């Protein structure tokens, strides 16, 4: 009884340790922001007051919802498509080495292309709006997943392959029993990278190639000096990115409990 209470206390303390320092950091940042703007050190036309941004979010949130929903749709659709294609192509590369030799150099070359630069081309080809943005997000998300999945699928020790060989497993069984589970930690690493890439690319894509979305809202608000709206849009964009990242991390914890304990393949 006393032991479990002590455990509970220790756990509560660990919770406090995890929550309090970042909360203090955030509070300090908000305080600095408040002091600098309220005292006029930074002019209101350069940086709005925190209260003004908060009021904007609370009272004038209809545009934030509308544009935020669109950006989230574009980013998440692109995230899903890009990652799925990346995983499928990586599996095909593992299955057909000749295919890998043909495609991998191309994939590496294309990886060097700046995504902002290809958005205008996609807009020309696909018209303005949702489709080119989803496309450019997919392309941006696809590469890291492809590269890490190719490595992940090859990450299982040769002993596991010899074991399945001695059990007369077929190629599909090798993929499902050894290669894919071994690649799972790799996949989650690239999903976490991809979650932020998806929103960054969606928003920059909207600057160039869309008439709606948070990226568009940020540019338009800036042009009309609606700084409170501009900052609100930035906050919403960060919130969406963090929420997506949180979902990925939750899925990782649920699916990969053996990796969460720091156990590798051995």
């Amino acid at each position: 009884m006393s032991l479990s209470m002590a455990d509970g206390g220790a756990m509560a303390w660990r919770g406090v340790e995890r929550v309090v320092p970042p909360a203090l950091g955030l509070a300090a940042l908000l305080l600095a922001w408040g002091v600098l703007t309220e005292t006029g050190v930074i002019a209101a036309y350069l940086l709005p007051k925190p209260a003004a941004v908060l009021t904007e979010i609370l009272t004038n949130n209809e545009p934030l919802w509308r544009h935020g929903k669109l950006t989230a749709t574009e980013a998440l659709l692109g995230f899903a498509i890009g990652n799925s294609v990346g995983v499928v192509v990586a599996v095909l590369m593992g299955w057909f080495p000749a295919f890998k030799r043909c495609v991998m150099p191309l994939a590496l070359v294309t990886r060097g292309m700046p995504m902002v630069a290809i958005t205008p081309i996609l807009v020309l080809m696909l018209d303005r709006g949702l489709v080119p943005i989803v496309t450019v997000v997919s392309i941006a998300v696809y590469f890291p997943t492809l590269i890490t999945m190719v490595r992940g699928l090859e990450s299982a020790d040769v002993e596991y392959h010899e074991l399945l060989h001695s059990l007369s497993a077929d190629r599909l069984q090798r993929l499902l029993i050894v290669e894919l589970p071994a690649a799972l930690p790799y996949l989650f690493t690239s999903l976490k990278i991809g979650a932020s890439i998806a929103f960054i690319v969606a928003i920059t894509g909207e600057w160039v190639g869309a008439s709606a979305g948070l990226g568009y809202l940020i540019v338009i608000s800036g042009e009309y000096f609606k700084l409170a709206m501009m900052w609100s849009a930035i906050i919403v964009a960060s919130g969406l990115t963090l929420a997506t990242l949180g979902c990925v991390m939750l899925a990782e914890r649920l699916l990969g409990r053996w990796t969460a304990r720091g156990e590798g393949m051995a």
Partner: protein
Amino acid sequence: MARLQDTPPRGGIDIRDLSMTYRRGREVTQALSACSLTIPEGGWASLIGASGCGKSTLLRILADIVQPSGGSAMLSGMTPAEARATRGFALVSQQSVLLPWRRMLENVELGLEVARADKAERRKRAEEAIELVGLRGFERAYPHELSGGMRQRAAIARALTLRPRFLLMDEPFGALDELTRASLNFELLRILEETSATLLLVTHSIAEAIILSDVVAVMSPRPGRIVHQLEIGFGHHRTDAMRDDPAFAAYEAELRHALHGDPGVTRQPIRQPAFA
């Protein structure tokens, strides 16, 4: 020695003039040369020899992991590839090779899962094998939650679920401490008596080879050849007491001499450091 090879048993293991040459660039390594060994059906044989003498290579040829350069290896009249296709043998290696993301029970079921046995059968046979190796109660543990000895028991249980006619073991207890190793030796004996499988064990422990074999084959350093075979006359119902038998010490001495060369040659006295 010749006596054992006169009657090639159809049901056992028959290795004839096996040779193995590895080529890496211009470097050529002769791992096995004219290696012959016969194990009758249900027999227990061990291969001992210095590390790098090719004893693991021999086992890997039987398990159809590598192809020999010459000669033949047959399991119950089948080539290693045929034996593998019919899941006639099970391989246990020094590393337990349990999938870290699977619980122990799911790891033990792996062989039957790959063989597409139905779920109820899979579970039943896995539970029997787990009972046999004494791991009841740990079914839901992940490999990293088990000790080295328990992981090796699980690997043996996984091998047993397929009811193999041949157990090919490559230093199965090599990574374990001496006490765990000795107790697992006798547990394996008990399991062997229940399963009637033919055993080929690769080990570098002379004692382990004697405890677990009817025949101990000694391999020469590379290129590996079988230079000596010793029959162990303890029968098939062995107990811990066998280690106190004077015959045990005599077998040990004979194998030690066979491993280290001609027993007639006196060893150089150990030189003391001059500055001591």
